[in-house]
Structure formats: structure tokens, C-alpha cells
């Protein structure tokens, strides 16, 4: 499979996913704390101050890209955040960005799961000229760390695993086409958060408050970017 790559406005990679109901780009990895920090420092947010961000990091501390290892790589990603807060980040990132629907997330997972993991995908991603330098380190080090992590999923390691759709974090998705309710897809590393969830069961995890979500240490997100015209 040839990866078609685009960068978000911060320079983090997104990959092209072909989908019958409209193709899209999806973040290669869940959204990182570095991406969130760009937003927090953009001057467009007042409510989300240092105290708010410290609370987010209380759920899941921050690891620097150069210090990512198999027992902490999930600390790169934003968790402990509400969907309503994510929406403000999305509004800053650009009009074509959004959370994926459960159908889009599952379509991406099924597409990537068909391909065996391969280091050349990482070489392709990190070879993009204008990639953010810290994103490059994260992509490389997360791949090495997850490769080292004990991998229990059946069927061997796939491209979906390299993209951390398993052994990453739980990710918010929309559960309905009107984008009013939320669920979760993914499979966190059990050292980080023990759960029996797996995307292979084919439907997202239900939340108690499906309209608001909740701040949870293992719940993060990745975004899609609509392809213009689709």
C-alpha cells in the first residue's frame, strides 16, 4: 500500500483513507500534546489556561519526543479531555477537520489492518520534507516503542497497529451521523489502562454520558480532514 500523506497545519502527518462515503485524511497517530500546545499558544483561547492544561496532564503526564519508550509512549498523546474541548481545538485547526464517525474510524482500521507492519511506512512518513521536527521524532520513537511492547493482538502486527489504532489510547468518535453523540474506539496498552475493548469487535465503546463524554485518563482522539469536494 502506498501511503498518501498530508500534514495538518502544525506539520503532523495525516494519511489518506479511501472510503465509499467520501474519502478523508486521518491523523497517523492520536493527537499529541505538542499539537494541543500549539493551539493553547495560538492566542485564540483564553479559557484553556495553564491550570486547565495542568489538569489535563494530571490524567496522563507529558513525555518529550526524545524520551519515548515502550512504557510511556502513550504520554505523548492528549487524553483527559472532553469532546466539547476537542471541538474548540478542531475549530482552530481548520474547517475541514473533525472527529471521525465510528464508521470512518472502523473503515480506516479495516483498510490499514489488511497491510502487514513495515518500517518503510515510517520511512515514508518521516521523509516528508515539511514534517514538524518533533512529529518526526514521535513517529519514529512510537513505532520503535510499540514494536518493543508486548503485542498480544491476534494476526500479527499490522499497519493499523503501527498507526496505534491498537495499543494506543481509546479515541473519541461520533456515534451518529448528526454528530451529537460520542463513543470510543481503540485499545489502550494494558500497562497504561486495562480494558477488554478492541476495535475488532466492530462497534465503539458506549459512554455513560454519550452527549458530553467525560474526562478519562485513557480517552484521547485523532482527527480526520475531509478531502475537498468529497
Amino acid at each position, binding site marked *: 500500500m502506498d501511503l498518501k500523506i498530508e500534514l495538518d497545519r502544525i506539520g503532523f502527518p495525516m494519511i489518506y483513507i479511501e472510503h465509499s462515503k467520501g474519502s478523508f485524511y486521518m491523523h497517523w497517530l492520536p493527537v499529541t500534546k505538542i499539537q494541543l500546545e*500549539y493551539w493553547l*499558544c495560538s492566542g485564540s483561547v483564553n479559557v484553556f489556561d495553564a491550570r486547565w*492544561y495542568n489538569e489535563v496532564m494530571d490524567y496522563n503526564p*507529558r513525555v518529550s519526543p526524545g524520551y519515548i519508550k515502550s512504557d510511556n509512549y502513550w504520554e505523548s498523546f492528549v487524553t483527559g479531555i472532553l469532546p466539547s474541548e476537542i471541538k474548540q481545538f478542531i475549530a482552530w485547526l481548520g474547517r475541514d477537520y473533525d472527529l471521525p464517525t465510528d464508521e470512518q474510524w472502523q473503515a480506516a482500521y479495516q483498510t490499514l489492518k489488511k497491510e502487514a507492519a513495515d518500517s518503510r511506512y515510517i520511512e515514508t512518513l518521516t521523509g516528508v520534507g515539511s514534517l514538524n521536527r518533533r512529529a518526526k521524532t514521535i513517529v519514529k520513537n512510537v513505532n520503535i516503542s510499540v514494536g518493543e511492547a508486548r503485542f498480544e493482538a491476534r494476526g500479527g502486527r499490522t499497519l493499523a497497529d503501527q498507526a496505534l489504532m491498537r495499543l494506543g489510547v481509546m479515541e473519541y468518535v461520533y456515534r451518529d451521523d448528526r454528530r451529537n453523540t460520542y463513543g470510543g474506539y481503540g485499545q489502550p496498552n494494558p500497562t497504561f489502562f486495562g480494558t477488554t475493548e478492541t476495535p475488532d469487535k466492530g462497534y465503539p465503546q458506549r459512554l455513560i454520558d454519550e452527549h458530553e463524554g467525560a474526562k478519562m485518563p485513557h480517552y484521547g482522539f485523532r482527527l480526520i480532514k475531509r478531502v475537498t469536494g468529497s
Partner: protein
Amino acid sequence: MSRIACPYCCTIQTFPDGQVCKNCNETVPENYLTAARVNSPFYMAVVGMSSHGKTTLIHSLINTIDHLGKISRGAFLTALDDHTATELKLIRQRISKREANNATTLRPKGVYLQTPMVLSLKSFMTDNRHTLVIYDIAGEAFSDRAEIQQYAEPLKLAHTIWFIVSQHDLTHANSEYSTLADLFNIYVTGMERAGANPRGRNLHLVYTKADKITNQLPNEVLEYIRNDPYSNLAGQSPRDLKDKQFNETSYVAELNTNSEHLLEYTRYDVDSGIAFINMAEDYEMALSFSVNTALGGDHTPNRSQIEYESLRVLDPLIWALQDNVGLRPGRNGQTSEIVLILDTGYNSKRKIYEQKLPSHFFTALSQHGDVKTYYIGTMAPMIQSGIEPSNAAPDNETQPYIGMILDQLREGTQVVVLTCQRIGDLLDFHTSEWHQRLSIITFDQRPYEVQRNDPWPRSVDFDVSKTPASQVEKIIKRLFEKTHG
């Protein structure tokens, strides 16, 4: 807390009295101030001798920008003040009636600088709004010692200068400046006289009236001009442009190649072109080139109705926007950019601002290069490069992060951070080349530790009990000796 330049008189201030400029008493548009607090506005000086096509280019460009929504999703242009709104209306009318510009009717004799156009451009090349302030300055002003003083302020503010040259008029008209080097010399001398140091600016040479020099331009350049997908954008149907949406990566790649061809053309085929390039390099200017024709052909005063065929008029703007959003790479090895980052945390008021350290550090650092000042945890400079920051403590605390500033800096940039608190993302840069280029000034009577017992190598403790000025000078001297030693 941001210090913003009044677009009309260029006085930098915090606008304590709302929207009214404390110097010229003009009411500055609220939209301008709001946008400027998020991203520094982009001040452009468009400089060119009469009849070289400067005003025609600006009008043609604005007419093209007006229709950018056809090729860039969500893009639109708005005027931010009444004067600009009226100007836009006139430009639209003139173009719809196919009237040629007549600069002499637009500008009374002896008036070399028009009221700036203050515009907001959304969703082109970034999702942000760009606030553009365009100063149209007649080249003739530069040769007049008294006159140029009046235009000093816009020239000091402008980071990018469009140097408009009609090579045809330069060689054919009876002008006292007959070569590119002559023109450049008169501009830089004028700028220096006005106290606007030309050193380190982005200089974009725009060859206008390409239709008059088709016999001189290299074939690659001619082909590039003729293949403009966005020629006469105003007249093109959005449907026809559906498959020709603006692709920044490929367009910028072509733009760069064309600039390289024009550099060669200037060097080898333009009279005194080599002297011009050498002079610009001596001033450490980042030089780029573009070529266009705003009208696509000749027009004469007795032919008031003309068919417009503008070609490649967007290119100077794309160069300028690249500069503005930091997309354009620096000139490796020749940079002298220095960035000063100021803490905004609780303790900074007493330890940094009351000691007037922003001024002291700015002055000391300015001896080594062009200083740009940021508040910690912000993405845009608090003030234009080369302008002294305020010693007033900011009203709001920002996040203690510097990564988003470092990520956008060009190679070789030196950074000095004044901080009274922990920097949340410094560890991200611990194993990078920033060790040699990033200095941290602390106020805790010990060096800055990135992790426990792991000090940042270029960390200096500032003793608040000593005289700030001499201490700052010593610190900067030592840090720069370390860099160059």
C-alpha cells in the same frame, strides 16, 4: 498586552485608549486590533518609480485576491477601514469598466505616499486571517532628503519590500536612474537616511510589464508567465476552476524555480544586475524575484478601454505570505536573527519587567543581529523584528512553552529566554542542536535544570541585586563568545 503599530502613522503602542491612536488620533479599526493581538499584521512597502506599473499591479493584484475564493476554499478579502473599502470599490468599478489606471490622476503632485490599504485575507495559504497593510511609496521620494523622512516609519515597519521595476521603462524612458543598481542604491540610501535600516529585510524584485520585455526574458520564464492558471481570475468561472484549485506545494515549487531563472536573468542579462545582486547580498537581504504583466499588453492614453489579461500578478503576494507565515527558508549561514523570549508568569513582573530587562536585553542583543521579541507561549512575535519591546508587564499569563516558537525559526537563529518558571517543553530540545543556540536566563540563583541534576548547558543566573545594564552586557558578551568561540 500586545504592542501594535497604528497602520496610519506607524506609532507602536498598546492602544490604551481603545481604538484611538495616541499619536495621530486616527480611529484604528477594531478588526485590525483584534487580529493584530493574535498575529502580527503584515506590513508591506511597495516601492517603485512613477510609470513602472506599481499602482496598476496593486490594483490588478487586489482584483485577483478578490476572487481567490474560486481557487482556495473559504478564501475572501475584506477592507478593514473606510478608506480601503472606498479604494476597493473604486478598483472594482474601474476594472469592471475596463478603465486603465492613470496614476497621475490618483495621486496629487508631490504626494509620494498614499493612505495605506488595510486588508484582511482569510484562508489563503493558512487557515488564519492575514492582516495586510500595504504602503504604496513612490520611488521619487527616496531621492529627496527632506521628503524621505516622512516615509521613514512605514519603511521601518515593513519587513518585506516589493521593489517594482519595469525593465523596459528603465532602459527606454528618460530617467535619471537608468539601471537597477542605480535604483537600488537610491532606495537603500534613502532608507538609511530615514533611519530604516535596510539590512536583513526581504527584498522582492517584481519585474512588471513582462509583455514589454518578451524579447529579453528566458524561454522558461516566458513559458511560466503564459501558463498562469489564474490569469484573469476575476473573469474565470468557478466551475472551470474546479479542477485547478490552488495547490500551495506545487505552486510554490514553480515560483521558486521561476525566481531562480530570474536571478540568472538579472545576473547575466540586466544592465548592472550583478552589482544590484551583490549590493543586496551585502545588505544581507533575502532576495527573490517574480515577473508579471498586470494588463497583458500595451495601452496608451488615447485608449481608455482596455482588455485586461493579467498574468502571474499573484506571485509577489505568495512570496510575501511565505515570509509572513515563516514558510520561506532563511539564507543559511548568513542569518543574524536573534529571538528574545520573555516570561509572563507571576514572578516575572518584579524580576524581569520592573528591572527593565526587556529593553536591556534587546539593546545588548541588537549589537549581534536583528532581534525579534516573543512572549513565552505565543506563536507570533509581540512586536515587529528590530523594534524594542515594552518594559510593561503583560496583563495575561501565557503558557510556559517555547516549542511553537523554536519550530518556526530558521537554522542558525540564536534564542535567549528570560524565565522565572519551568519551561514545559524544554526537554523536547534537550538532545538537539539547540544546546548551542538557546540560552536561558534564570532568576533562582542556580542554573536551569532540565531534569534533576541535569542543567541546560547555556544557562545563566541573573543577579537581581546587581545593576541590570552592565550585567546584561556581560552575559550577552559571554554567551556570544561561547557561540563563536
